[in-house]
């Protein structure tokens, strides 16, 4: 039922500057790339990808950028929130050699997919891109999995100086990957889409969401593809048909906004 279930926050953790994880009781299955609608009572209800998947506990990781994320940031262990979901279609791990590229808070979305890839013994390279060092999170968590991890910062404060797409292009030219899996700023994902030509390219899109279950039409891209239902993860074949991909999104009123 698409109705917020009230649950208790079991843990909160600072991950990086202005970035926090909250964990809550939520038994049940969820695929990496799927998301919840999180109700912060009296404030707002917002979409958040799952970033931690345990049998009974799930978590989300977010950066505070406005009213809702600020309110969520200030909640503590024991506080109550409402959860609906899980929603949408997550990542499908098809290839045995996968390149993961996460930008900004998109890192939180791809990390559970990296964990699953490792569980399935797929070889994976991971590139994380952030503006500057103190925005980076999940570095230790991903390293511990035993993948090859590469960090990019725009300002060179850590790792490779430059955009994640630049490093990704070098990797793609040098190595063989079956799949590229990405979440981050849409401009970044569009660039990767142009660089990596194989079929198995999967990107997780973000659009303004209201219902989350495919009825209101707020999140539609291309010819009526609902990001909350047919997405948020789209493969190359679908992305090719979405002419708004990398070009514009819509605000809460439905107005187009250039990306």
């Amino acid at each position, binding site marked *: 039922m698409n109705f917020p279930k*009230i649950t208790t926050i079991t843990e909160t953790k600072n991950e990086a500057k202005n970035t926090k994880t909250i964990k809550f009781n939520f038994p049940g299955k969820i695929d990496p790339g799927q998301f919840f609608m999180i109700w912060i009572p009296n404030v707002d*209800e917002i979409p958040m990808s799952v970033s931690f998947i345990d049998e009974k506990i799930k978590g989300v990781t977010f950066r505070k950028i406005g009213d809702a994320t600020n309110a969520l940031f200030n909640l503590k262990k024991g506080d109550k929130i409402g959860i609906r979901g899980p929603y949408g279609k997550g990542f499908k791990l098809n290839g045995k050699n996968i390149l993961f590229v996460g930008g900004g808070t998109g890192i939180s979305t791809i990390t559970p997919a990296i964990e699953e890839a490792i569980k399935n013994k797929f070889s994976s390279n991971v590139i994380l891109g952030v503006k500057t060092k103190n925005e980076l999170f999940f570095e230790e968590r991903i390293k511990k999995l035993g993948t090859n991890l590469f960090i990019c910062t725009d300002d060179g404060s850590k790792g490779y100086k430059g955009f994640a797409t630049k490093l990704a292009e070098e990797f793609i030219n040098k190595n063989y990957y079956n799949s590229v899996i990405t979440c981050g700023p849409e401009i970044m994902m569009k660039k990767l889409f142009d660089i990596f030509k194989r079929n198995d390219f999967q990107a997780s899109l973000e659009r303004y969401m209201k219902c989350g*279950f495919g009825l*209101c039409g707020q999140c*539609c*891209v291309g010819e009526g593809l609902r990001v909350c239902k047919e997405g948020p993860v789209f493969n190359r074949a679908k992305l090719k048909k979405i002419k708004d991909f990398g070009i514009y999104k819509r605000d809460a009123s439905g107005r187009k906004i250039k990306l």
Partner: protein
Amino acid sequence: MDEDAGSMTRIFKAGAGAVVTKSIGLKPREGYPNPTIIELECGILNAMGLPNPGIDNFKDEIAELKKSKIPVIGSIFGSKSDEFSKLAKNMEEYGADAIELNMSCPHAKGYGLEIGSDPKLVKEITSTVKKTVKIPVFVKISPNLINISEIAKAAEKGKADSIVAINTIKAMKIDLELKTPVLANKVGGYSGDAIKPIGVRCVYEIADNVNIPIIGVGGIHTGKDAIEYFMAGATAVQIGSALYYRGAKVFKKICNEIENWMKYHNVKNISEIIGAAHK
């Protein structure tokens, strides 16, 4: 799914005969904060708050739809007759095939139902819009009224070409744990399965009181639901919430179910059953 050209195209290709746009106003409007929609046991509760990009920005969406020759009913909302007529005029210029006047949204201050409950205003707005545009004008009315036939008659007097009934029903859901209404706007409009008997009754009552066609809407999920509306006096139907319950294929499914029902009951033409319940 009626906010942008892409999704309306998908709905049309899925078998709808025409698409009704989201209700459009003069200026962009974000609507209420979330939660704006939730599912309850027997239906959907929403208080979107009339989000829309504003009529100027909507031009491109209609143009896009008309490229594929999709019949478009432009839904509009305003607070006065001159607002309605400006919106209608724009919709007509952009290429809409008909106008639907939203006088029934139950949760927007100064709009919708607040206008649609006053027969004088309904008549005045309808006739002003009728004088402004050449395309057909439909008036969508609310079930949250005790004088629903009076409102329908007022629309008819204003020369409306058709009545659309019903919009959602005012409702509320309270969360027991938090002791608070779930929707940010507290009050919303109820749609889906639960409201079908109410819609059928409204259409039946309106049919007894006006001589213009009625478009039935409210809780139509199956061919049989549509047929019930036809028997109550509707000549066409709209589908909303069923899109969630049965997916985008709902339009083709309902059409097939209507045809099968007709075959089974030896009905050659749908007109044979329209208003059949009025004896």
